[in-house]
């Protein structure tokens, strides 16, 4: 309880304008409420909520974040904001003809899934500095601006108030406990690969699958 629920992660090769905050919750009981905030586009809920059972590892998750931020910086996002872009980057679906729609469905889908299965959620939050769009960033502005947007503490407080669930560290171990492999293999079309099933060492098998998923995520949308 006393441990920090929100972890700040600095990603390699991303400008200082972008900060990644990660939090993992189990047994979330108010997923419906959280979903409403997202669908209602409540500006206070600028989070990418992700169903943790579809996440293999921090590496996979951060790959999605990296991809989303890169897309935001390049102006090639397929969804309205960087948070939804994270969700889409994780998804196995390449069909984002109507970014708006598909992003909503995606989140809707994700969230109902926890309510129907055994209620866990992973929250992954990104806060780019607001001025980022304006281009011509003077590095002097960045440190001053950042505290005025949300600090990790603010985010943590906000989440603590609104997410009713058990906060656990967002570690590979915790993620592995909730990963739903059969579902993931179905999502990412990773069945019918006899050589994978032939790998005896469970960890080695998972590593192979993780890399396949990450590679597929990298390819998606190109």
């Amino acid at each position, binding site marked *: 309880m006393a441990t920090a629920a929100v972890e700040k992660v*600095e*990603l*390699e*090769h*991303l*400008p*200082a304008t972008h900060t990644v905050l990660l939090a993992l919750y189990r047994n979330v009981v108010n997923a419906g409420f959280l979903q409403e905030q997202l669908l209602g586009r409540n500006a206070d809920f600028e989070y990418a909520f992700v169903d943790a059972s579809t996440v293999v590892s921090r*590496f996979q998750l*951060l*790959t999605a974040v*990296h*991809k989303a931020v*890169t897309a935001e910086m*390049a102006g*090639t996002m397929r969804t309205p904001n960087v948070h939804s872009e994270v969700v889409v980057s994780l998804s196995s679906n390449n069909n984002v003809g109507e970014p708006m729609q598909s992003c909503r469905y995606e989140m809707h889908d994700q969230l109902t899934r926890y309510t129907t299965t055994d209620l866990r959620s992973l929250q992954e939050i990104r806060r780019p500095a607001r001025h980022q769009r304006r281009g011509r960033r003077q590095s002097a502005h960045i440190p001053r601006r950042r505290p005025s947007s949300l600090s990790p503490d603010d985010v943590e407080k906000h989440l603590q108030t609104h997410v009713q669930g058990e906060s656990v560290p967002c570690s590979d171990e915790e993620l592995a406990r909730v990963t739903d492999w059969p579902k993931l293999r179905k999502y990412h079309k990773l069945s019918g*690969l006899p*050589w*994978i099933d032939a790998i005896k060492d469970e960890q*080695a098998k998972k590593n192979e699958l993780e*890399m*396949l998923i*990450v*590679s*597929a995520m*990298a*390819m998606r949308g*190109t």
Partner: protein
Amino acid sequence: MATPEPAAAIQPPPPPADSTSTHEFPLPPILQHPSAAGPAKLITQGAEGRLYRTSWLTPTRLCALKHRPSKPYRHPTLDARLTRHRILSEARILQKCRREGVAVPALYGIDESQGVLSMEWVPGRPVRVEINEFLRRRAENYPHGEGGRGREEVTRDEEGAAPLVGLMRRIGEAVGKLHKAGIVHGDLTTSNMMVRPWEKDKGLTKGHHGNGQEYEVERSLEGEIVVIDFGLASQGSADEDRAVDLYVLEQALFTVVLEAYKETFKAAPVVLKKLEDVRMRGRKRSMLG
């Protein structure tokens, strides 16, 4: 300067800002952002691209980042298209190999507009280096050569040759798998194949995280063959192309033998010159026949 006039409606990609004058070449934009692991290291430079070793997402995960810089002599639109096409084609091939269980680097990320492809960093050393060193070690272990001749020739029966035979077999298997997956490599040299230490020996190769402490590891050609650099690869099942792959490999492997031969035998250049004659003659005969 005489740069071609770009058509009005076409927006050329912004040139990479080379504000980092510490570097010899303009870095791809992604490498101009901060990294806790320090600056990227240029590993090799080819005609088409540059390969950097850098970190990916976290400071401890290494990645091989391939950058195909834009060519100033090409029309910007054509340049962007070619770069995009080549990056995507390489990425698709890596992905396909991976799915088919061919040992290749995993794909981490692509930014085709910037001409950047990020892949898993494969630990270990190229086959060429490993074989050379193996042969050198053997020459040292058997210093009693006749007339200055070392033991460059390695036959199946000879004691101690098993690791090399094993390596050759694994190379054959790797190429076989690649072709079975419907991929033709296009540049199958011994530099484009890595010997990745087996998982159980991983502890021995930790030195790779630092800069260049690669020599501390004692190995004997043991490891998995990982084919790298699919920049010239294509998807296809033409036996002609596959045969060309094998031809290139044959030449590459024999080159290793010849290198060690030259190092051990003083009169090697004369013999090698003669070898050229023999090759020519051989070819002429077969062409006549």
